[in-house]
């Protein structure tokens, strides 16, 4: 029925199968949309947030998807600026995942604010001292850049490409993509960093606060670094998942291994910096404010040292150690384990910097406050996942996302 839209030289599943997949993801999406409308029309009383937990699941999801979407800017940087040409075979998918992550982040933010219709105040009444202002500006601009980066891929659709204007537009856009990749890398550096600064500048919250250089706390640099390290890991994870679902090899091993190797070294550098940061924070910063490190990991029923060990050790040191070795990268099982752990690690880091920070009592006569999200919060957090699945399904079906696919999966005529 829609075979004219499917890229040449590749095979796609029957329409009914595709429609069924979209319908299932669509049902989840509708559930999320319903919860979103409840939040918009009835207010944030639909959530389990409270006056102790002003930031909760959504802000974590926001920070996490932006970190995971970091694969787009870093792969683009490596491909167009550093000149790692092999990565042209995975850059489309990295951009698509980045586009999904960033559009999701913007949607979540639109649900999260108490007065969504006033969201533009952040631009109009901008406070230059606020990290969130920097986030808002860079995030919006970078989403524009990602849209521009995604557009040439859309224009490569067989039907669209038949229109001469779109054909030439797409062709010319490819030529100037390095400019957008550089812009994207610049903007990403700042908004990934600003998101780290969100907790790092809170000098009255000893769990999140960090010293730094000039106006930027160390978390500014750690967030950018971790996004550059773990974002590509997420791109590889989703690529491997897509290969599993489609039952096809879509990207050659040398491409994946190159990206995994760079990620591995980035992750190694990051995790050394993170350990140094944690030691300095535990030995100097927190004690200067009257806290022992264990004050942040005891006297409550959830947050213990296990979360630090899980984040830094199991989801940091371990995947880094795997990814920097040839053997680790060549073995599919260890490779997938490492990229999944690295992706989980960066999510866990965002979790503790948002939720654990708020759970820790600062006033000596207050107690830990734990929180469980409401179903509306869960549904609206799952919403972007369903949206992402649908966009990937549609893009994979109708666009030449994986340039190596025809070569790796020749269609028998």
């Amino acid at each position: 029925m829609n075979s004219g839209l499917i890229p040449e030289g590749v095979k796609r599943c029957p329409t009914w199968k595709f429609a069924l997949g979209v319908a299932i993801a669509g049902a989840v999406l509708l559930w999320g949309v319903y919860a979103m409308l409840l939040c918009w029309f009835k207010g944030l009383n639909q959530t389990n947030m409270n006056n102790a937990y002003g930031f909760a699941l959504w802000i974590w999801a926001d920070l996490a998807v932006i970190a995971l979407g970091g694969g787009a800017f870093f792969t683009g940087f490596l491909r167009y600026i550093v000149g790692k040409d092999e990565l042209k075979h995975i850059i489309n998918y990295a951009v698509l995942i980045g586009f999904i992550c960033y559009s999701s982040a913007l949607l979540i933010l639109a649900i999260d604010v108490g007065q969504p219709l006033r969201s533009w105040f952040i631009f109009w009444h901008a406070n230059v001292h606020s990290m969130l202002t920097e986030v808002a500006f860079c995030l919006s601009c970078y989403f524009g850049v990602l849209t521009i980066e995604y557009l040439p891929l859309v224009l490569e659709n067989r039907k669209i490409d038949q229109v001469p204007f779109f054909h030439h537009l797409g062709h010319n856009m490819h030529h100037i993509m390095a400019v957008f990749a550089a812009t994207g890398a610049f903007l990403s550096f700042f908004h990934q960093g600003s998101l780290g600064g969100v907790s790092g500048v809170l000098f009255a919250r000893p769990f999140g606060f960090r010293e730094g250089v000039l106006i930027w706390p160390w978390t500014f640099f750690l967030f950018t670094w971790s996004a550059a390290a773990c974002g590509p890991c997420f791109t590889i994870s989703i690529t491997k998942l897509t290969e599993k679902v489609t039952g096809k090899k879509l990207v050659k091993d040398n491409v994946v291994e190159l990206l995994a190797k760079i990620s591995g070294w980035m992750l190694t550098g990051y995790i050394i910096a993170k350990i140094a940061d944690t030691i300095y924070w535990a030995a100097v910063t927190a004690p200067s404010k009257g806290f022992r490190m264990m004050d942040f990991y005891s006297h409550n029923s959830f947050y213990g040292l296990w979360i630090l060990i899980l984040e830094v050790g199991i989801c940091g040191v371990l995947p880094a150690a795997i990814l920097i070795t040839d053997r680790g990268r060549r073995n599919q099982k260890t490779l997938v384990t490492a990229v999944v752990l690295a992706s989980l690690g960066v999510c866990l880091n965002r979790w503790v910097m948002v939720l654990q920070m708020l759970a820790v009592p600062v006033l000596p006569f207050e107690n830990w406050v734990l929180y469980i999200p409401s179903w509306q919060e869960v549904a609206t957090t799952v919403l972007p996942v369903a949206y992402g699945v649908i966009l990937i399904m549609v893009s994979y079906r109708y666009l030449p996302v994986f340039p190596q696919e025809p070569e790796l999966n020749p269609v028998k005529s």
Partner: protein
Amino acid sequence: MEAVNRRNRAKKYGMVIDLDKCTGCGSCTVACMAENNIPFRKDESDKLLSIAWLHVYKLTNGKPFPHTDVCYLPRPCMHCEGHHGHSPCVSVCPATATDYDEETGIVSQIYTRCFGCRYCMAACPYHVRLFNWWDPVWPDGMEKMLNPDVSVRMRGVVEKCSFCYHRHQRAMEKAYLEGRRELEEHEYQTACTQACPAGAITFGDLNNPKHAVYRLKKSPRAFRLLERLGTRPKVYYLSSREWVRQAGDNHLQQEKQKI
């Protein structure tokens, strides 16, 4: 020159609360709610969703009977000075919806500009910033009892203690009409100060030697909450009990032993 003059004229309104006098009766909270049109719901059992600009904490020394000691600690907004007016909440608000007034030292909240991102709530270690999870609903007829000088807040914005700033505005208007530029101490007092039956709360200009707070803040009994965080709060507490003064901040074990 003008800047110097302005700085010399600048007030630093603050509060001194004598915890040895406070009985924990809650009059200050009630007066604050009535004065500032603070909304409430039928079910206020979940205090994490309640709005009370002035919350009264109950502190104990943790010792068993008969050595048990209790202290009630009223906690309004600390109107932190921070570093050069960069109080924890003011510097983070992305839409400049909260401001540090250099002329009064009061941290304001602009309800009509706040879009409810709640970053300020995350920044405040005192939990003085509260979110309107619901639109205010007043019992029948009560809307006629609301204070016309204070705007009610809509769902989705953050609010907090303003040191009854509308009273400052009213007092300044009266002073201007009388050809004055300065206020007497009694002309600007917060609702909680006036309501406290024990006289535990004293309010005034911390920079003005003629005001009682100027002297009281220098008392050896005086301390502030979480001073070592660098927030520089403008609410001082007085207590003759060592354990109460210690409870005002976090201390490492070796520091406690020294004390």
